[in-house]
């Protein structure tokens, strides 16, 4: 009896190891799961049309933007509607961010003091754009639980900042589906009190993959405030010209 159970235990361990090699979808490696979620979100490169809704107790407004990304560190976002915001653009290259305002016809390299400011009045900050992948590099990850959601396995991952990492959060709690769709990202302060949470409210196929179509960011202490981001169309792993992620293209869009 003893022998049998030991053997089956060994078999289970081997099986788990094989699955881990087979791919993140099947394995329970927290870091790989997160990486998969980010890759799924962005692809090697991406081109997308996004609608953003900023909701406040007294008002609500919508913005439309085009976004292009390549790899981890290149991103360009340009607003197309409403007319008032049209042409406003943000370019991110590595750790540097530039913003272009067509009314001023001026490009500003974002100073540190502005990084935490709200991005066009939304509940996202420039930091959220610039530091989105910090969760991969500056945190250690651990799976805290699993659940079954819509026939998929969803993993709850706790991400704790590495010692000395330039991160203000106490921790982040992320829920990722086994096919790489991020379901929830919660930010906690250093007392482990929830500060804000981003939830995926609609999942659908997009650009040939399951995709979080609607994301909503909500500050925890201010009910009635949220920002919703809906990706209406997207292509992934497309070839993008190198001239796209340049300051000259930020100011004078081509193509």
């Amino acid at each position, binding site marked *: 009896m003893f022998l049998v159970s030991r053997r089956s235990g060994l078999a289970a361990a081997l099986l788990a190891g094989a699955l881990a090699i087979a791919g993140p979808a099947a394995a329970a490696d927290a870091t790989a799961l997160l990486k998969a979620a980010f890759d799924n979100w962005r692809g090697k490169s991406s081109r997308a049309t996004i609608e953003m809704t900023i909701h406040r107790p007294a008002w609500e407004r919508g913005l439309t933007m085009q976004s292009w990304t390549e790899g981890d560190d290149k991103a360009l976002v340009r607003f197309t509607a409403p007319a008032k915001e049209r042409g406003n653009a943000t370019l991110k290259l590595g750790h540097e961010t530039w913003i272009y305002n067509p009314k001023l016809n001026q490009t500003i390299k974002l100073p540190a003091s502005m990084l935490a400011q709200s991005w066009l009045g939304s509940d996202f900050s420039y930091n959220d754009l610039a530091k989105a992948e910090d969760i991969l590099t500056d945190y250690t990850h651990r799976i805290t639980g699993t659940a079954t959601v819509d026939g998929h396995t969803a993993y709850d991952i706790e991400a704790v900042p590495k010692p000395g990492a330039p991160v203000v959060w106490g921790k982040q709690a992320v829920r990722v589906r086994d096919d790489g769709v991020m379901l929830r990202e919660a930010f906690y302060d250093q007392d482990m009190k929830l*500060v804000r949470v981003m939830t995926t409210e609609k999942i659908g196929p997009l650009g040939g993959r399951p995709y979080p179509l609607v994301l909503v960011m909500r500050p925890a202490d201010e009910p009635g405030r949220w920002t919703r981001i809906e990706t209406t169309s997207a292509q992934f792993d497309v070839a993008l010209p190198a001239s796209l992620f340049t300051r000259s293209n930020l100011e004078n869009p081509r193509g």
Partner: protein
Amino acid sequence: MGGLSLLAPMAWRNLWRNPRRTWITLAVVAVGLYSILVFAALLDAWARSSRDAALDVLIGSGQVHAPRYLDDQTIAQRMAAPGARLRAVLDGPSVEGWADRVRTPAVIQSEYKTLPAELLGVRPARERAISVVPRDVSAGRYLAGDADGGIVLGAHLAKRLKTRLGKRVIVMAQDATGALAQRSFRVVGLYSASQEDEDRFAFTGIEPAQAMLGIGTDVSEISFKLADDAGAPATVAALKAAGPGLDVRPWTALAPLTAAMNSFMEAFVYIWLWIMFVLMAIGIVNTQLMAVFERVREFGLLQALGMRPRLVLAEVLLESALLIGLGVLAGAAAAVATVLAFSGGVDLHFLARGAEFFGAGHVLYPRLAPAQFAAVSALVWALGVLVALWPAGKAAGSSPAEVMSHAQ
């Protein structure tokens, strides 16, 4: 001398011929001088407090910077760590203490807020000799050493950041290459100072700051505190000679508003003295003129008996000198007693943060300045005697024949 031995008892007795009038004049002089002296001591305490509040945080008696630092207070305007020649002057007897620092505009980020501040990389042991910040840590601890990677924030800044002891904050600043440098610091202490300073300065060890900004062992400023402020020009000149090309300035050039406030306070004491003195003079002249007019017949008689007008003048002046002298003594004695009684400190906490608007600390320490007390008292006495020349002249100038035939 024989004249004085005759005149002094006469003057003294005349003083008490109308005690009520004498007491009133005495009171006028005493209260006037008392107000001048106490006011001067308080103003002086206020001026010192506001000066110390401004200087003892960071400025010191003077500072050394790279040439363009004061125009562009960033890490780009830095200088090498003080060399042997500069150290020789700084370690000299005229300098009580000095500290080199790294100083740069920065942004401090907590989970909830991002606020601008100035990051200072300091040497704690040196700071203790010249700054009140290490002493005014209200929670936690001050930095332990040059390599301490903790951060000490102003209590008010910490409150605004919604952070507290033991939490991490991220400091972002431009490094030597102009790129964004960021580092996580743990809050190890909170200090209390004026709200403005609390919001403005954040302290960490000099080594983590230098490492974060990529500036090797370079520093932004050297602050020094002199044993005696009077030696400032000599020390500044010596430092300029020892550090050619560096910008050496005394505190009066670094904090011109504080310097202006300081000299205004001194001038104000004398403005107040003049106002009070004019009021006192009116009282003295009025009383003495009344006394003289009452006694015209007496002066006429004295002169008729052969007293010279000069002696009449001297007699009346002596009366005034005695009268004002007594008032001055009483006023000065009361002022000394008052200042000594409050030398433990006048607590301005009832003004709360309002006192900061005038640049003062929360407790004023009036101090007895014997030279100033003596000078002001002597001045009031001398000026009092001077205005008493008028009634005295009236008395001496009366013609015996005229006044004795006149009236009664």
